[in-house]
């Protein structure tokens, strides 16, 4: 049987299919090793955060919560975390508003100079952050604005608004301009059209934009490094801790926590999404009289 099967596979019409499967298998192996490349380094953070040794090296010494304990009791860390959350929350909301307005203008109106205007807004994406940071530092210095969380926020706004506009343009282009016209045609003015049609249809894009801009701002270091005053954001706090070997394990604990939280958030979002889809389907099936 096996011999026949092999012969058939070798000479028969199945040749192409098997070749195809073999190629896919190669890709699967590649994909898994790539995932390993992405994950393994990051996974050392949680691993060593429970290791009962100040040195980050094999072999593992034993299990401990000591570093988590240290982390929670660090005033600086908690303060930095609060600062980062504050900045990221405000920046993500404001930049998404600006990005949405700009995207609406770009996708819905014919106007001269549109391409240059869009290019101008996207500049923060094509200039290295260090130069933007320095430029803002220089002007703050010249104008006499003290460095603070606000200056960091302004820096983040530049990059986040550009990203938000890109996300929102693709979302707004994704649904028909006629839908908004239909709403105007049916007697709703510009604002209520936005509220009743554009906004509900743009929600996936808005969520994506908020998540993206929040993450960017929360994790941003290069700009913040130049623009921070006395109050540190989390990345700046981490940077200051990396120099002291004794502080390293609690930094690892912090990294593990961030990883854990983002994993929970993403899983939760995905769960909500799936439930949402299923919920709508169930509702639709049960409510429609046939």
């Amino acid at each position: 049987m096996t011999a026949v099967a092999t012969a058939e596979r070798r000479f028969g019409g199945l040749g192409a299919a098997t070749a195809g499967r073999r190629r896919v298998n190669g890709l699967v192996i590649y994909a898994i090793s790539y995932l390993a490349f992405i994950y393994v380094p990051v996974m050392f953070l949680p691993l060593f955060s429970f290791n009962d040794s100040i040195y980050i090296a094999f072999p593992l010494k034993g299990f401990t919560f000591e570093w988590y304990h240290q982390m929670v009791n660090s005033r600086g860390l908690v303060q930095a975390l609060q600062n980062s959350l504050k900045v990221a929350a405000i920046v993500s909301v404001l930049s998404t508003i600006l990005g949405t307005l700009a995207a609406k203008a770009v996708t819905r109106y014919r106007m001269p100079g549109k391409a240059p205007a869009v290019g101008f807004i996207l500049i923060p994406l094509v200039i290295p952050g260090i130069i933007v940071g320095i430029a803002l530092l220089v002007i703050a210095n010249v104008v006499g604005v003290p460095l603070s969380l606000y200056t960091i926020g302004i820096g983040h706004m530049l990059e986040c608004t550009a990203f938000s506009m890109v996300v929102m343009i693709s979302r707004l282009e994704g649904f028909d301009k006629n839908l908004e016209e239909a709403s105007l045609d049916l007697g709703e003015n510009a604002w209520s059209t936005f509220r009743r049609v554009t906004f509900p249809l743009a929600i996936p894009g808005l969520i994506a934009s908020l998540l993206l801009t929040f993450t960017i701002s929360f994790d941003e270091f290069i700009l913040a490094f130049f623009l921070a005053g006395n109050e540190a954001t989390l990345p700046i706090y981490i940077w200051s801790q990396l120099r002291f070997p004794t502080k390293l394990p609690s930094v690892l604990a912090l990294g593990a926590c961030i990883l854990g939280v983002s994993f929970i958030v993403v899983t939760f979002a995905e769960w909500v999404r799936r439930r949402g889809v299923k919920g709508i389907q169930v509702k639709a099936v049960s409510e429609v009289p046939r």
Partner: protein
Amino acid sequence: MSERSIISISNVSKYFGPVRAVDGLSLEIQRGEFFSLLGPSGCGKTTLLRMLAGFEWPTKGEIFIDGQPMAAVPPHQRPVNMVFQNYAIFPHLNVRQNIAYGLRKAKLTQAETARKVNETLDMIKLSGYGLRAADELSGGERQRVALARALIKQPKVLLLDEPLGALDKKLREEMQLELRALQKTVGITFVFVTHDQEEALTMSDRVAVMSAGKVLQIDSPTQLYEAPVNQEVAGFIGNMNFFDGLVRAIKDGRATVDVGPLGEIHALVNGPHVSVGAAVTVAVRPEKITSFSAPPNTEANVVQGVLDKTAYFGDRSHLYIRIEGLEKPIAVVAHNVARELEGSGDLNRPVWLSWPAEAVVLLPSE
């Protein structure tokens, strides 16, 4: 502006950069009529419709709806509603919510709204579909919802932008009749944009034929078909044979036209452009020509040629007759009355064609 006009378009132009989408166009649409804008794509008919709805603004000229100037009236305050080409059904709302969308401003009670929506659902024969999601509708159903959503607003004018274009042939023909009947029932003025001449002829009271941003002719379907004003209209609506000729003589309202290879053709005088010595284009519809396999005994125009090729359509055949000295063969429609399985299609056999003087339209030469 006449009393009966619901829409008056006065010398309106719309330029997109260097492109003149609508070019100095004027027309009047009467209250309660089914009016079609017919033309090839890019002729400006959709731009004109969108100017009526308020989505585009005229570069020049003025639009009046029910006597009111529209120069400063935004779309949401105009007494018109539109059925979009792709229907623009709100994907996040169900059928009922879609239909009731425009009622919010009317400040109705919930019961009133529900009653109105139910009535409209009945009218478009979709009762029972109210709770369906937008993406669960077929093309025809979407079209009905779009119609209902606009009609429930009781607009003075309903604008329809090629609403049947996305439907298959059979459904389209059904909807043509239904739309026509609906328009008569509700009595609202319909302005209907289409590139399908058959559709325009079937449904409309009057049709405006457009080309390159201008109106070529506004007339009833019969007039458009039987008495087109120029070659472009004649060629766009139905098929037409054209021959160049010179008017030789006019007598008792009948003209004798010299069409070189065909000899002398008799026709009725149909306008001041027909005068002795004038160059005209002789136009004859293929279905108005009768073909014979022997010389016919008749007073009408007769020419002789040979059968060049045929095309079979079941109920009819198109014959193409080659005439010595004529560039294009003459097209003739032969109705397949008898059940004939072979013969008659022998190419190169001699054929005699005949048509009465009444069948000829004389167009200004171009």
